[in-house]
């Protein structure tokens, strides 16, 4: 009988404060139903204004770039990639935590994911949208990008080059975005139903009726729904691992010393999860405070995420060490030079920011007191974000600026336009995220109810059956 399965779960308090099913609906709906200035969401407007300000700066800088040409960026020969591709890799990486939480932790039956998966998935979608801006604008004429990047029969009778990792990237990132969006939407359908059924306002009711697709909570639907959800998790798991692997192929398939290494795919995936979890911690620490979700996103949840940060941080640190070892062990003069130049050349400061932020600072999470302290984890997560941005900067810039021909060596310094675009990318991301928290249920209500009953059935001794 299937209910014997229920009894196997060990009781673990995932939601504190003795909440009932109805409490979940009430608590999660607060930010959606109180508009424009409820007492506990007043800070939202300040954050939103700042995000819009950053977005405006970014839009101005991108407008200037498009109008003038990408010569306004600091790129040169041999540094053909700079802050733009750094930002692309950084934002794609941020997205990975969301899919890891929603898909991989689901397959591993990690019930604690239910409190954080919705917002982490939203983060994935907005991060991938942010990431996609950069290669598009890097083409200089983004309105032509689709014609250049997609294979379609055209008057030139030419096709894209399927042997290029840059094209693999087009397929990988666009598939990732599409599937993440569908997965997220499927998860939202029952919760849109909940919001619809408590809506008093006519327009609100209409909008959420459309979004919920007329969900009725029927078990005939749940039966299909659960199978589809499992399939999405199964599809997303290899997908997320492939996406950053393919992004790493952009580097690893080339012949540039410092890029041409086989460790790149797992190293990039670990780094992506590392940075993504740091971003989730940054956002959730703020969200649980502002929206009063402390009983749902507990210290226990945050501690688990910090453990993931610690583990993936050490994988990344191992990759840094391994690269150095192989550079020496390979006996290749170019490889050795690239790595010595990386750590002690003109960009030494960027390298050491990366190492300190990613490999040393997270070590503080060995101590339980530190992993469970909100201010500590908030600060560490910010350092990890900074460190991971610099990791991509280091990989791209230090490998390019000293190429095979010393006469063409030069320095790459991002122009203020590029810093403006980088700042604007954060504005773009946070604008979407802040709109999300006011329009969509930020906790997966139906899934939370599912993990609550496990405990209930346990305590009642499972008399049914």
């Amino acid at each position, binding site marked *: 009988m299937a209910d014997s399965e229920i009894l196997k779960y060990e009781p673990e308090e995932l939601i504190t404060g003795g909440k009932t099913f109805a409490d979940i609906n009430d608590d999660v709906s607060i930010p959606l139903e109180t508009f424009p200035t409820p007492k506990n969401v007043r800070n939202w407007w300040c954050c939103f204004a700042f995000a819009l300000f950053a977005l405006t700066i970014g839009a101005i800088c991108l407008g200037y770039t498009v109008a003038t040409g990408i010569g306004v960026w600091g790129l040169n020969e041999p540094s053909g990639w700079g802050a733009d591709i750094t930002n692309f890799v950084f934002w794609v990486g941020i997205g990975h935590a969301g899919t890891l939480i929603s898909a991989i932790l689901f397959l591993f039956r990690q019930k604690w994911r239910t409190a954080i998966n919705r917002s982490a998935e939203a983060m994935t979608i907005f991060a991938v949208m942010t990431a996609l801006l950069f290669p598009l604008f890097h083409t200089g004429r983004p309105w032509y990008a689709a014609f250049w990047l997609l294979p379609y029969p055209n008057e030139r009778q030419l096709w894209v080059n399927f042997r290029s990792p840059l*094209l693999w990237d087009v397929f990988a990132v666009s598939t990732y975005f599409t599937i993440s969006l569908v997965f997220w939407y499927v998860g939202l359908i029952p919760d849109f139903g909940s919001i619809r059924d408590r809506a008093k306002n006519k327009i609100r009711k209409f909008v959420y009726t459309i979004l919920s697709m007329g969900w009725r909570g029927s078990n005939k639907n749940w039966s299909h729904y659960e199978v589809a959800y499992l399939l999405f998790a199964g599809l997303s798991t290899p997908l997320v691992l492939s996406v950053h692997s393919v992004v790493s192929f952009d580097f690893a398939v080339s012949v540039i010393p410092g890029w041409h290494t086989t460790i790149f795919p797992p190293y990039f995936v670990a780094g992506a999860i590392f940075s993504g979890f740091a971003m989730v911690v940054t956002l959730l620490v703020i969200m649980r405070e502002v929206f009063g979700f402390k009983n749902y996103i507990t210290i226990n949840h945050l501690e688990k995420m910090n453990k993931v940060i610690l583990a993936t941080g050490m994988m990344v640190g191992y990759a840094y060490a391994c690269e150095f070892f192989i550079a020496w062990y390979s006996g290749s003069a170019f490889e050795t030079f690239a790595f010595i130049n990386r750590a002690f050349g003109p960009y030494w400061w960027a390298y050491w920011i990366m190492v300190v932020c990613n490999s040393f600072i997270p070590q503080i999470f060995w101590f339980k007191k530190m992993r469970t302290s909100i201010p500590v984890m908030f600060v560490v997560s910010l350092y990890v974000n900074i460190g991971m941005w610099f990791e991509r900067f280091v990989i791209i810039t230090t490998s390019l600026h000293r190429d095979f021909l010393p006469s063409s060596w030069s320095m790459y310094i991002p122009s203020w336009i590029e810093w403006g675009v980088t700042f604007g990318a954060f504005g773009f991301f946070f604008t979407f995220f802040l709109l999300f928290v006011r329009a969509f249920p930020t906790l997966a209500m139906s899934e939370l109810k599912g993990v609550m009953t496990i405990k209930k059935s346990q305590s009642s001794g499972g008399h049914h059956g």
Partner: protein
Amino acid sequence: MAEQKLAGVVGFFNDPDALLDATRKVKEAHYQSFDAFTPYPVHGLDDAMGLKRSPIPYVTFFAGMTGCLFAFGLQYWTSVIDWPLNVSGKPFNSWPAFVPVMFELTILFAGLATFGALMVACGFPNTKKKIVDPSITCDRFALMVDVAKKEKPGYKKFNTSEVEAFLKSVGATDVRVVYEEGWF
């Protein structure tokens, strides 16, 4: 409203265990068409209702295969047949380089087909059947015995007062008659 068409009789329960017990009894009583309504997927309910496993995985599998073959076909045709181009001396059919795109399109086709299959299987978007009660998406559990569209032999005949009494006897706290109603 002029004439309301009878849709069925619904009974409400306050916890999933009571719903599970009642569902088993309704199934044993051989009602032709019935459905449970819950705020979250209740474990064991599929067995209690006697539902078969969803066929969606077959759709996913075949769509994934299609995506994989399509991706290989596209890359082979463009690189070998339509416009063979020598790229750094690699063979025209450099199939290892085609693997990433084959993988991505496998996932893309499989994922979109899964979504499509879910929509079809659940009858979404559903405009014709309104939710029985708003509390279902919050904290209540319901069991509804429907008026069968076409009566099949071997099943119990639908009779409103008889079904009402039956649902009360299996522990429903609140029993109501439901008429057909759309969302808009």
